[in-house]
């Protein structure tokens, strides 16, 4: 066969369709599974396990997520006292009251008197002292919170 100059000059047309198909499928997958609420979940908190723990069927309108746990080293060993992880800060429970008051003031804008309808979601580490969790609940009760939700994890999930 005789090769002409034109046969070298021709551009090779790549069919991009299959790649674009796959790439859009990937994007769709990630968009479906992405969970922006996971941002409120602190990885340092190792939740207690319960076989009865099921995601709520109806999500409350307003919720205040409070997370109690420990600072841990790379091996996962506890290296601190029990702390509250709140707004990227790790603070002892004793210092939480002013922050809670500030949070409460926000909810009070829509409901100046009476109990606060916001649900307090407590994500406490399995190794947290029960007394600390109870004190956290009492602190919230003093600010007129009434609804609490204790978070636990299904055993097979870990």
């Amino acid at each position, binding site marked *: 066969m005789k090769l002409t100059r034109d046969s070298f000059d021709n551009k090779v047309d790549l069919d991009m369709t299959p790649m674009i198909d796959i790439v859009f499928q990937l994007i769709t997958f990630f968009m479906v599974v992405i969970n922006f609420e996971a941002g409120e979940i602190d990885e340092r908190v190792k*939740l207690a396990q*319960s076989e009865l723990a099921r995601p709520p069927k109806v999500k409350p309108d307003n919720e205040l997520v409070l997370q109690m746990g420990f600072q841990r080293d790379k091996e996962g060993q506890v290296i601190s006292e029990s702390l509250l992880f709140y707004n990227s800060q790790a603070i002892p429970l004793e210092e939480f009251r002013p922050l809670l008051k500030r949070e409460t003031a926000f909810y009070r804008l829509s409901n100046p008197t009476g109990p606060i309808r916001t*649900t307090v979601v407590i994500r406490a580490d399995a190794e947290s002292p029960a007394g600390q*969790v*109870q004190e956290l609940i*009492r602190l919230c009760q003093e600010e007129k919170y009434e609804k609490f*939700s*204790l978070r636990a994890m299904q055993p097979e999930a870990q």
Partner: protein
Amino acid sequence: MRLVHADTSSHKIPIDMTPMIDAVFQLIIFFMLTLKIRTDEGNFDINMPIGAPAQAASQLLVPDIKVRLIANRAGGLSRLELGRRSLGNGDKAYATLNESILGIVGKGNSLNKEVEVEIDADYELHYQEVIKAITACTGRINPATKQPERFVEKIKFAPPRKPAGG
């Protein structure tokens, strides 16, 4: 000017795909980096206003249930008590607690919603043990349906017991 129409209809218009592919890959990278494999979390809902008057025992046909959790030095469960009855420790104690409470409230009893369980735990006890106790008090997994069934809705905590040294 003379226009040539003959060949223009057969010419393909090349579309530059590069910007679109750039943007699409950026999107994929964003989603990959922000993706967190979410573990299923569940809730135990508690309605607990401060200073709510306890319902008089005489008004209730089913008595309130008190569960006491006593911690050992390491924060584990040393002893579990239902009322004044010791149930021991470990998973067997929780299983006994579950059966005992089911026996008290009765399966399918409409009064179950009125029954309140009070959890009284030592200060240093690991929270995991409290959750185990709440699990044992509030329900069980139905062996037939494999779905949870709740037989107690109301849970409350006794005031926290300060540690002896604190």
